[in-house]
């Protein structure tokens, strides 16, 4: 039986890992992820989840232990944020290169210096090239649902890639709201049992994982990861559909979600919880007879460029919001990724919400106004304190 609980985003993530019957959890506490691993530790301590919880001494070891466990054939989960994710950096490449379907919850948080525990998305954006599938969620329900979906996507034989489910720090991690917890049995039937054919450590069938990738094989190996990422697009769509059939909820087509986009000349492109606020603003403006649209990028890697182009085919002004900044270019990563495929549109870039700077409905209205008048390629920092 499913039931609704009023819980935080981190709790939703922990509940999802429990529902998926993960075998190994390896994590190191960091704000604002902590309550996720605390809850998982509780589950294990109370016998509600039969898993090994490895209380590692750093995030580097957290993800390294995940690699070891996943390579042995265990379903593996970790959670982190910000500096912790940065510390994992090198091993993130290893997890994807070794094709290990580890699932991670990342609580999006700014990077030092100055040290800042609040939300932006610089941490995960900075890991965009590591070969991890990246999903950005809008609310706590989606956090739970996406982690369940993530295991099914990651473990799909045409994919076999790790998945990072990103939720905005504090804005979701520390906000309680109603979340429907699906029935445990139904979730376990949905995700199945992880029984890898490619990666295992078994003395009866000795294999060598993580060898030296000499120049004659390295490029092919990386190309295979890219092909797996390509395959992931369809798998994400299918899993989203299958999930909807079984649990009654879906998130756009799994890759992107559009909102009021059909008749809008100006469309905002964004990721994460900010999309909720944007939808509110769009509805309010609609009451005054003005049509604006939202394109929410749910999976940032793989970046579904064809879907994005198709969704924006009627748009004239595309306002791209980034909770991150590529310093030295004065653009956000989403903008730099999309500008190239939207050459026939007027695109503008908005750097928003860095380090927990609150984004108010007025800010969204300001962005819309600006996008309508601005020159192509302009960048604007929103909510910057003037001297």
């Amino acid at each position: 039986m499913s039931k609704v609980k009023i819980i935080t985003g981190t709790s939703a993530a922990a509940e999802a890992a429990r529902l998926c019957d993960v075998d190994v959890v390896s994590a190191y506490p960091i704000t604002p992820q902590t309550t996720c691993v605390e809850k998982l530790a509780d589950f294990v301590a109370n016998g509600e989840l039969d898993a090994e919880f490895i209380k590692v001494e750093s995030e580097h070891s957290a993800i390294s232990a995940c690699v070891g466990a996943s390579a042995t054939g265990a379903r593996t989960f970790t959670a982190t944020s910000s500096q912790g994710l940065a510390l994992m950096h090198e091993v993130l490449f290893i997890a994807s290169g070794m094709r290990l379907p580890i699932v991670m919850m990342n609580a999006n948080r700014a990077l030092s210096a100055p040290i800042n525990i609040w939300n932006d998305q610089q941490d995960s954006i900075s890991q965009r090239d590591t070969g991890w599938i990246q999903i950005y969620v809008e609310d706590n329900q989606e956090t739970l649902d996406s982690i369940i979906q993530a295991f099914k996507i990651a473990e799909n034989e045409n994919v076999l890639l790790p998945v990072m489910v990103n939720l905005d720090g504090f804005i979701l991690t520390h906000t309680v709201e109603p979340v429907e917890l699906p029935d445990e049995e139904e979730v376990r039937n949905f995700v199945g049992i992880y029984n890898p054919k490619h990666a295992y450590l078994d003395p009866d069938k000795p294999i060598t994982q993580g060898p030296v990738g000499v120049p004659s094989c390295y490029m092919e190996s990386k190309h295979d990861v890219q092909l797996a990422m390509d395959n992931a697009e369809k798998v994400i769509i299918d899993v989203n559909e299958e999930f909807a059939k079984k649990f009654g909820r879906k998130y756009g087509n799994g890759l992107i979600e559009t909102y009021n986009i059909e008749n809008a000349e100006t469309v905002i492109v964004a990721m994460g919880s900010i999309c909720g606020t944007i939808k509110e603003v769009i509805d309010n403006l609609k009451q005054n007879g003005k049509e604006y649209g939202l394109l929410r990028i749910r999976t940032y890697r793989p970046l579904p460029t064809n879907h994005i182009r198709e969704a924006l085919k009627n748009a004239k002004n595309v306002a791209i919001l980034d909770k991150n900044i590529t310093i030295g270019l004065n653009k956000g990563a989403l903008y730099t990724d999309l500008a190239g495929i939207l050459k026939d549109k007027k695109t503008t870039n908005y750097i928003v919400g860095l380090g927990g700077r609150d984004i108010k409905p007025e800010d969204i209205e300001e962005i819309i106004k600006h996008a309508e008048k601005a020159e192509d390629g302009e960048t604007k920092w929103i909510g910057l304190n003037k001297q």
Partner: protein
Amino acid sequence: MVTIGAIIYEPGNSINNKTGSWRVFKPIMDKDKCVMCENCFIFCPEGCIKEKDGKFEIDYDYCKGCLICVEECPVNAITSIREEK
């Protein structure tokens, strides 16, 4: 073709790599002198001294000619010569 995750499924297939070609000096074993003390066997970095029919013999496909076996043989059953190619 690279396997998924560049995983190698054939244990010990390094035997395809015949390292015997590296050799400059060649150990020669006198089986009659050998007392089966196992020194050469346990100290060989290549694992290329093998027991066959109750006697040790050197697998020259892999022997790199380090001559540890010569050095560690207590009865001088192994001597070395210049490799002739």
